[in-house]
């Protein structure tokens, strides 16, 4: 049975087939998807086809592409889970290599117009989530604008790093024209979608975490929402 004309013309099926084939994807969705395919930097597709992270930084070959990009979805989660499995052995190998050679400098991607220190965090800091006696040990909440193209996957991980993920990106203060940049690092493997594919929009980020010794914010919780860009 390789013929499709088993059913009489004009039958219920041929009519339904016509209806089925007239069913077209809405224009907006089509445009979004095509834009992502044509401009791979907007999509995790770039990771697969050209080995480039959404932020444009080089992706190590052992880092599964699905860890970096893509919209969150049921299937996407499955893809990521599969990627974790694939990347696990590579992570172990990378960890062993690091253990032998000592820690490598992390990959800095945030534009350093001004040295990032705890003052930067204070400029973005809105409140302290869990105050403590030592201000540097308090969990901070910072709110700022995500710096486009600053997201990158750090190439190497310390041997004791749990989870196998480390991302870095930059934040600017919400209401300021200063060049202050806060470097934010996160060990979360799944990042909020707007960070991965901002799609040209401005993204407001709220990050909770602790200040590191070098002034960066070690974020344990991140939320990101597309927002109207500042004037």
């Amino acid at each position, binding site marked *: 049975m390789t013929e499709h004309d088993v059913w009489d013309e004009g039958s219920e099926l041929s009519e339904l087939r016509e209806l089925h084939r*007239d069913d077209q994807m809405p224009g907006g969705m089509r445009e979004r998807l*095509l834009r992502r*395919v044509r401009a791979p930097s907007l999509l995790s597709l770039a990771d697969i*086809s050209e080995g480039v992270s959404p932020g444009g930084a080089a992706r190590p070959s052992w880092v599964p592409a699905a860890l970096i990009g893509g*919209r969150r979805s049921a299937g996407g989660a499955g893809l990521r889970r599969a990627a974790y499995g694939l990347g696990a052995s590579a992570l172990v190998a990378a960890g062993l290599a690091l253990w032998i050679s000592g820690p490598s400098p992390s990959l800095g991607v945030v534009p350093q117009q001004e040295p990032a220190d705890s003052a930067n965090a204070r400029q973005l800091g809105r409140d302290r989530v869990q105050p403590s006696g030592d201000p540097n040990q308090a969990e901070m909440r910072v709110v700022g604008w995500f710096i486009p193209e600053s997201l990158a996957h750090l190439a190497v991980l310390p041997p004791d790093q749990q989870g196998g993920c480390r991302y870095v990106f930059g934040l600017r203060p919400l209401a300021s024209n200063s060049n202050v940049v806060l470097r934010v690092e996160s060990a979360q493997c799944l990042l909020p979608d707007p960070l991965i594919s901002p799609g040209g929009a401005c993204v407001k980020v709220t990050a909770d975490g602790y200040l590191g010794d070098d002034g960066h914010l070690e974020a344990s919780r991140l939320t990101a929402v597309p927002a109207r860009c500042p004037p």
Partner: protein
Amino acid sequence: MTPTDRAAAIAEQHLDVVWRMARRLGVPTGEIEDLAQEVLVVVVRRVSEIQLGKERAFVASTTVRVASNWRRTRRRRPEDPSDELDGVASAPGSGSFASLDAEQSLERSRKLARLTSALDVMSDAQREAFILFDLEQLTAPEIAEQLGLPEAAIVSRVRRAREVFRRVVASDAKLFAAVQRSTDGKRNR
């Protein structure tokens, strides 16, 4: 033509296949964009393996696989309240039916609902074979090649799916006739 250009060309030509197949396979409208993106990821990753002239078959079979994964994951997840909106999102006017008048749209919706009710009764395997063969009109060898199954299995699934389809259409017709008789009876009273 670079691989990216070819992937973009394939996407441009066959995104509608992904859309309509995902809908027939029961993926809620709100999740089709995610699913389509996953299909495109596969297309980009394997673009060099896609034979010329078999692009549509590749996209269609990939959609079947991705939708199948989606179903498996979905069964483990709690119901998403936003699914309630699917009826609204997929109503006439959201897609290509926007230019039709209300009556035509309603008629189309009824017919597609009949198709959906037939597909709902089929097993997953039957539904996939039916959609690929009878709705997308791929050939049995093409489907067998893309899904990695024997041709006989595809033929058998299509045959059983058609039986289900006939049964559902017949029972719908009986139901419709009964409703019509009842309505006419009330009018004549």
